[in-house]
């Protein structure tokens, strides 16, 4: 047959084509390999800094450590911010960038304490109803103009201006700034806000009620100044690279969503001569495991988190790089007290007792979290931290008490407690829900259905009160106990469980204007220990990987505010 005789010819053709294809493929890979073989990670860093200048310093001015030739810091930042406008940003990822770009009256020191920043000093008068901040005179915007009290007035007004539509407008209101509520409701003009510039460098805040912790609150970006010149020139586009003017240690250079944001040292910044990091690159990596791989390949100096599933391995393999910083954040389960069986305080108490928190922090979360028996974490500054009596019991004692409570509430083997535990879809929430529901099942014979919902669906169900028990996390907005305790007041927008206690509400109201609010806070916590509107599980930590070459990471700041200007990169 002819076909038989032509077959070798065909085979040759195809073989030639194939060989060519494979060779191209290999050549392509090899070409990349050659360029990359030097050090792919370093190459990526080099590409990331584009034309970053060589560092001005060879050694650290204070410690004398040899510094890396290029001071380009690459930070893993879990996702993209809602905005870079200090008055529109509303998330931690945005906050991380905004505190590098802008500077407020105060900042968070290495231990979480409030330190002077743009304000060199402050004082209150009129029984804490009027606060006066004295600004530094050497503050400069990145266009070289002076930062004045007028910029703070402008910024604070923007925050409450309905036209700006800031999520955190309520933050100004919760600080008690005069007329904030009326402005948000559209009843008064933003100009009516209780802030004014006495002169270029004196900023005065008038409050409706005396708030003693106002300076702590000004660490938050909602109380940052805003550059009127840039906003009026560019409108909504003022946060774009090239348009943005900022007063922090860095200024925005480039930003491509989903790839990276690059900030460069602001030469006009007042302490620019002490800033060592020249460029900061924020890489938004939503998946914690992808972020870990980027770190492992040498392309990140620090991660924003660590996958829970990798904790055990990393503790063994990279113990020196794993940072577990206490955080002012509490992980808990909220009871819907308007719904049986949780309308019975004995049920809430039994379930809270029966959670073996040591098992959870040692075997599930593994990030040096601390068992929680209170709502407010101990790391909150100035807080008189106390624990309820059952915190001192052994777990078997708590379990026994829990069984008794449940029996009193009328639940037996024939009539077991049944309910649904709701959480948002996430590996670590799932692990926790499984383990805790198993504890309740074994110790109390409870029949728990655990169900997960996609994030926004979960939130809308929870906020509508359509749940029995739901996961709840809470991170403090400022470093003072009221940021936690006001979560459970009757008028709180986040008190989804619907618990209400007149004495508790009054205590927190009284605490606001008190010189020493601690006695009120202690009493408020005591009410929570009796009433169990929530079951606290643990106080969270911020877990991250930090390169051994990156120095100055704030390991002891429970607010987890990482200022790039405080860090530096040492030579190999």
């Amino acid at each position: 047959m002819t076909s038989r005789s032509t077959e070798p010819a065909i085979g040759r053709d195809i073989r030639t084509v194939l060989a060519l294809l494979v060779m191209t493929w290999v050549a392509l890979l090899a070409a990349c390999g050659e360029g990359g073989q030097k050090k792919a990670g370093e190459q990526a860093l080099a590409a990331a800094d584009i034309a970053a200048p060589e560092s001005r310093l060879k050694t650290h001015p204070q410690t004398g450590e040899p510094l890396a030739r290029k001071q380009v810091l690459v930070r893993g930042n879990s996702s993209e911010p809602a905005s870079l406008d200090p008055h529109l940003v509303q998330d931690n990822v945005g906050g991380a960038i905004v505190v590098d770009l802008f500077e407020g009256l105060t900042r968070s020191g290495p231990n979480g304490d409030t330190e002077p920043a743009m304000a060199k000093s402050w004082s209150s008068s009129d029984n804490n109803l009027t606060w006066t901040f004295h600004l530094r005179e050497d503050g400069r915007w990145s266009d070289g103009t002076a930062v004045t009290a007028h910029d703070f007035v402008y910024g604070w007004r923007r925050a409450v201006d309905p036209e700006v539509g800031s999520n955190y407008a309520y933050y100004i209101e919760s600080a008690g700034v005069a007329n904030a509520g009326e402005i948000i409701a559209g009843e008064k003009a933003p100009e009516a806000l209780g802030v004014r510039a006495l002169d270029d460098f004196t900023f005065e805040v008038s409050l409706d009620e005396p708030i003693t912790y106002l300076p702590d609150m000004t660490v938050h970006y909602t109380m940052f100044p805003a550059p009127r010149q840039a906003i009026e020139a560019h409108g909504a586009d003022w946060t774009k690279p090239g348009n943005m003017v900022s007063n922090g240690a860095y200024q925005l250079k480039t930003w491509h969503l989903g790839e990276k944001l690059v900030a460069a040292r602001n030469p006009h910044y007042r302490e620019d001569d002490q800033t060592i990091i020249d460029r900061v690159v924020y890489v938004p990596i939503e998946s914690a495991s992808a972020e870990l791989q980027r770190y492992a390949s040498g392309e990140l100096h620090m991660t924003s988190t660590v996958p829970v599933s990798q904790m055990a391995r990393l503790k063994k393999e990279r113990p020196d790089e794993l940072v577990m910083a206490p955080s002012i954040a509490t992980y808990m389960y909220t009871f819907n007290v308007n719904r049986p069986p949780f309308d019975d305080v004995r049920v809430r108490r039994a379930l809270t007792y029966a959670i073996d928190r040591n098992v959870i922090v040692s075997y599930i979360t593994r990030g040096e979290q601390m068992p929680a028996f209170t709502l407010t974490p101990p790391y909150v500054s100035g807080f008189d931290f106390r624990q309820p009596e059952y915190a001192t019991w052994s777990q078997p004692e708590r379990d026994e008490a829990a069984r008794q409570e449940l029996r009193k509430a009328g639940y037996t083997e024939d009539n077991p407690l049944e309910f649904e535990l709701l959480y948002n879809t996430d590996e670590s929430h799932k692990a926790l829900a499984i383990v805790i529901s198993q504890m309740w099942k074994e110790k109390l014979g409870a029949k728990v259905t655990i169900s997960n919902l996609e994030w926004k669906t979960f939130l809308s169900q929870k906020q509508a009160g359509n749940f029995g028990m739901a996961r709840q996390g809470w991170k403090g907005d400022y470093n003072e106990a009221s940021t936690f305790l006001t979560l459970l007041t009757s008028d709180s927008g986040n008190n989804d469980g619907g618990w209400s206690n007149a004495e508790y509400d009054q205590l927190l109201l009284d605490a606001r204007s008190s010189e020493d609010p601690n006695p009120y806070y202690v009493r408020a916590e005591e009410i929570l220990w009796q009433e169990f509107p929530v079951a606290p599980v643990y106080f969270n930590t911020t877990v991250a990987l930090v390169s051994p070459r990156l120095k100055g990471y704030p390991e002891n700041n429970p607010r987890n505010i990482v200022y790039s200007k405080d860090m530096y990169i040492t030579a190999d």
Partner: protein
Amino acid sequence: MFSFIIRRLLVAVPTILALITVSFVLMHAAPGGPFTNERNVPEAVMENIEAKYNLDKPLWQQYFIYVGNVAQGDLGPSFRYKDFTVNELIESSFPRSAYIGAWSFLFVVVFGVGLGVLAALKQNRWPDYTVMTAAMTGVVFPNFVMAPLLVLLFAVTLRWLPAGGWEGGQVEFIVMPIIAMATSYIAQVARITRSSMIETLRSPFIRTARAKGIPRHKIVLRHALKPALIPVVSYLGPAFVGIITGSVIIDQVFSTGGIGQHFVNGAINRDYSLILGITILVGVLTILFNAVVDILYTWLDPRVRY
């Protein structure tokens, strides 16, 4: 042919409108909204935010405002990324996905068709078994498995390639995204090509050609390949749109800054304008490339006329 194109264009407008309407209704039916947050803000604050984005208006009014803006080419502001409009987001991210996609598509066509033809010609012999085993493996290696594996091998272990980034689309930054994108498509195309080629080689006109004594390579290249490609082209049309509009996995694992991430994140964040914008883009591309496929049919099979 000309009237065919006109007809297609006329059908495209109502199709896109229907797509917008259905997506709009479905999106608003999903629980929660773009501004539902873990921190519930006070009512007055929420009202101000919603007013800023026209969400305080009745749904039908929002719909007409939206359609009116789209008609003028304005896809509206993103609700999640407040510093950007949807037009800006698409303009900055789509070219990247399209660039990775174009390279991936080239590899898909060359390797997929090449390997498929090889397997068909060597049916039930070792080249066939090798290709088909590789194809089966490729099919079960979707990009969310492939991408992290590539990073682990080439970036973490061997340190040959950077694990992520874009840097103007330099070759070392896009090699892994392209491989991750192309692998399962190559496998799929190889399988389709193989079975279609085998079928064509058995058809009477090929037997006639053989009986006439035409050499086999001429039979394959001149007579069998074109008809065998018809099912492949039907698959590649929609696949092309899928490839150039990127993938959330590739964007997330490699930080390529492409458009794939926006589609999924848009849905998760209830970023109404962003999802609608990308839906319209994908819709338009799908209609366009389906038309291209139909035109290709006339070339592949002279019997097809419009």
